[in-house]
């Protein structure tokens, strides 16, 4: 079969090996970690900024949108094809361009895998602070687009706090540079605006990040509870003592049992909830904070508090946590990860509400989340072959989001809006708010050529989750 004209143009813009266009090759690119949508017309893997520019010009000529894609681990459908378009994959732009330790900076291409960046500087005592649980696979470009968080962003801030500059290709093929290697470049903070814009304002082709010093000492604690409410109350109590742990994660008993079955990380399977707490910093500070935290946990009826005694034990506990979605995936045909935020003092109330939702819709919901930030990830288990379950999953998820908003929170803390929640945006934003967001979009992406159908409501269906998990993982 001869390649169609679009493909010939894309090959001319890049190279023959850089373009996928046969139906069977495109299958994978219907998906990200949320769901499957449509097949792209082609997938192209540029190796340089110049190739990205040429690709976007080809796309414009053919009147086709462009959908940037990192590793496809996104949980809001950001890298899927909402209408038609060309997927631009960054797996071949995966070079660390510069490591500059004295300036605590690195410059990377967008396809660099998050963990590879930290690994490249760890011998010198540095790391890249944002650590999404998917960090073995997800890319720095994806992190920038989603403004990703992770367990350790509680103390150190999310991606936007660690990105100083971007090289961006605009839909008209212009290449611009925002921010700088130094902070506080005069002018509007376009870097801050682009981080979290989910590929709808520009294609990021290079990223300047801040590298952080690895801490001198780390303590990892597991506090075990017989009542969920004791665990959730501990969270705000730790903060009230003036301590910001590096990480403060919670898993409920249901999740723990799944995690143990999958990872054998050493979590107790007979408890109602655990907190996984990490403190980092100077040896002296870590010791003192550990003691205080242990005392707070005991005051809140923790049954037992364990400390990881070795790097291996610590790694195992984190492996259990970071693989938890997958572990839950083993016990039901499908699962749907939600992402909402509430003020952390409202955690006890929110978990009670989640239990009510579980009952109301007759679904199992696992609770695993970044408790210190008030960033919840209820995992709804279901079987996609049963239409009634699918429908209940959607309603349950929406109820949870509405509750987050009622509590003064948000419909997404780190997974993004994507195609999943764009119709829920009116829960948070008025027409006036949305109008100003649209004007920003029109400045960068006037013809809607970049990642259309994402972030902003399309107005076709109002107030519903537009796409929910259907694939399971």
């Amino acid at each position, binding site marked *: 079969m001869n390649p169609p004209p679009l493909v010939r143009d894309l090959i001319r813009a890049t190279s023959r090996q850089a373009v996928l266009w046969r139906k069977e090759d495109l299958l994978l690119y219907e998906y990200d970690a949320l769901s499957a949508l449509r097949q792209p017309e082609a997938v192209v893997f540029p190796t340089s900024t110049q190739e990205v520019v040429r690709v976007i010009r080809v796309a414009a000529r053919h009147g086709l949108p462009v959908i940037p894609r990192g590793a496809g681990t996104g949980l809001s459908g950001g890298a899927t094809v909402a209408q038609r378009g060309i997927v631009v994959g960054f797996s071949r732009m995966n070079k660390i361009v510069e490591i500059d330790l*004295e*300036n*605590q900076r690195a410059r990377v291409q967008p396809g660099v895998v998050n963990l590879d960046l930290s690994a490249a500087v760890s011998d010198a005592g540095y790391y890249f602070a944002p650590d999404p649980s998917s960090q073995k696979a997800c890319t720095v470009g994806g992190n920038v687009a*989603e403004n990703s968080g992770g367990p350790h962003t509680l103390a150190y*801030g*999310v991606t936007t706090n660690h990105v100083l500059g971007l090289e961006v290709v605009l839909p008209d093929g*212009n290449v*611009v540079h925002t921010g*700088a*290697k*130094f*902070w*506080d*470049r*005069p*002018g*509007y*903070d*376009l870097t*801050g*605006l682009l981080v979290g814009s989910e590929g709808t*304002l520009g294609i990021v082709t290079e990223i300047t990040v801040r590298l952080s*010093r690895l801490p*001198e000492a780390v303590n990892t604690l597991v506090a075990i509870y017989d009542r969920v409410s004791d665990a959730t109350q501990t969270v*705000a109590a730790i*903060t*009230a003592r003036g*301590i*910001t742990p590096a990480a403060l994660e919670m898993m409920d008993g249901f999740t723990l049992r799944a995690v143990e079955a999958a990872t054998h990380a050493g979590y107790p399977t007979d408890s109602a909830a655990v907190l996984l707490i990490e403190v980092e*910093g*100077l040896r*002296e500070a870590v010791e*003192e904070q550990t003691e205080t935290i242990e005392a707070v946990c005991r005051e809140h009826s923790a049954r037992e508090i364990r400390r990881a005694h070795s790097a291996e034990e610590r790694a195992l506990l984190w492996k259990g946590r970071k693989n938890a979605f997958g572990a839950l995936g083993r016990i039901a045909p499908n699962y749907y990860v939600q992402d909402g935020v509430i*003020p*952390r*003092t409202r955690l006890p109330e929110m978990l009670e509400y989640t239990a009510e939702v579980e009952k109301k819709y007759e679904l199992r919901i696992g609770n695993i989340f*970044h408790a210190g*930030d*008030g960033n919840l990830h209820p995992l709804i288990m279901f079987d996609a072959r049963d239409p009634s379950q699918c429908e209940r999953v959607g309603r349950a998820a929406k109820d949870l989001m509405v509750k987050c908003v009622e509590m*003064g*929170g*948000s419909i997404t*803390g*780190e997974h993004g*809006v994507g195609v999943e*929640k764009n119709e829920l*945006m009116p829960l*948070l*934003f*008025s027409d*006036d*708010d949305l109008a*100003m967001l649209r*004007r*920003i*979009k*029109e*400045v*960068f992406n006037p013809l809607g050529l970049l990642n259309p159908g994402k*972030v902003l409501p399309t107005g076709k269906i109002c107030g519903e989750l537009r796409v929910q998990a259907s694939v399971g993982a």
Partner: protein
Amino acid sequence: MASSVQSAHMELAAWVGSDHLSDDPAVCRAAAVDGKAPALVVYPSTAEEVAGILRIAATAGLTVIPFRNRTQLDIGNPPERYDVGLSLKEMNNVWHYEPSDLTISVEPGMKLGDLQYLAAQDHLWLPLDPPGGVKASLGGTLATNATGPLGHGYGSPRDVVLGMKIATTEGKIIKTGGRVVKNVAGYDLAKLLIGSYGTLGVIVEANLKLYPLPRQRATYVLRAKSLGMARELRRCILATPLHFLRFLLVNPAGARWLRQGTPLAVESTKPEIWMEAGGSERVLERTQKSLEDLCREAGVSVETCGGAEAESVWNRASEFRHAVVEAQPGTVVVRASLPIAACEEFLSAAQQEAESAEFAALGSPGVGTVHAAISGYRDLGDAGSTIRRLRQSARSFGGALVVERCPVALKAPLDVWGDPGDDFDLMRKIKAAWDPQRTLAPGRMIGRI
């Protein structure tokens, strides 16, 4: 123009009440920006009033500059036009304060000192120390992304804002972000407003992240024998796991300025490094010991101080940029933003470029910022060419230089921001999309936007 001011005057008076508006020439002169006085000053007390003022002004083709305590108002190119001064001094409310969530929502006119006082009751603080110190308003601090020495430990205003409400020139009040510490719903418009110097919209409410107050603090002073040695010390100290709230490098004139009028006043002839650490007694003991071990080799002793003494020096540090001009009108203050590694070299180059003028510099090498005050120059021409040379020097190190304060006559030929980059076209379009009539502070920001 005069007639449109007159008719807008009536409309504004009807909107905010005639007791919330003044055309008294003395009042207007006091609201002047770069020597240009507005025809009116309005004092809204609600977000809705701010939005209405902007709408009325935009419709009448008038220009508006928002301000509060004027601590940062000197920064910027001279306004092209300036009809209405928008004083935020009546907007001081705290809307939500949740100590256990470490969040607070405030109106823009609230002074930093008042917020710190409130938060301290719960052992919390907002770790910002912008020029103007406690007098700086929160709106002004955010609008100018103003940082001080605490930037070393806590970052800039950009890192403490969770969300905000913004009054637009169409008279709308829009919201971005929220009151929770993590939120990625929609574009982060707060980032755009922070550091926009009042040229896109007026911040009418800000949700901020608070931090626990350090239990105890200690200040350490190192007197380096040269800038070269200061560089070595900075490298070694930043490579340790020690954590500092503030980290300042000052040249001899900067050191004299810092110490002046405090119990720590001594004659300084060498560059000094001033650091502040926070934490428990054990943490501070450890910090001191590690510093001593590290400095022994270099033959430098570690002096320590604390309490009111240290506080007075740190206050002088955050007020530096503002206070040097008050003390000696005509002083030029520049901000160089540099890669971390270039700070000492820039200081030494700048010292030479300043030639015979007095040159006092306070740098935060940990983040790559140097503030310098230049006074005693021969004439404006001399000052102008000194600034150009300093800017060239900052560029040669891969940085940029902004003139924060200088005599107005220097501003026109210089452009205080320097040349914009290849992203300027986007900035221009954003300005046009949000403020199509150029109602807000026209001409003041980068590229005279």
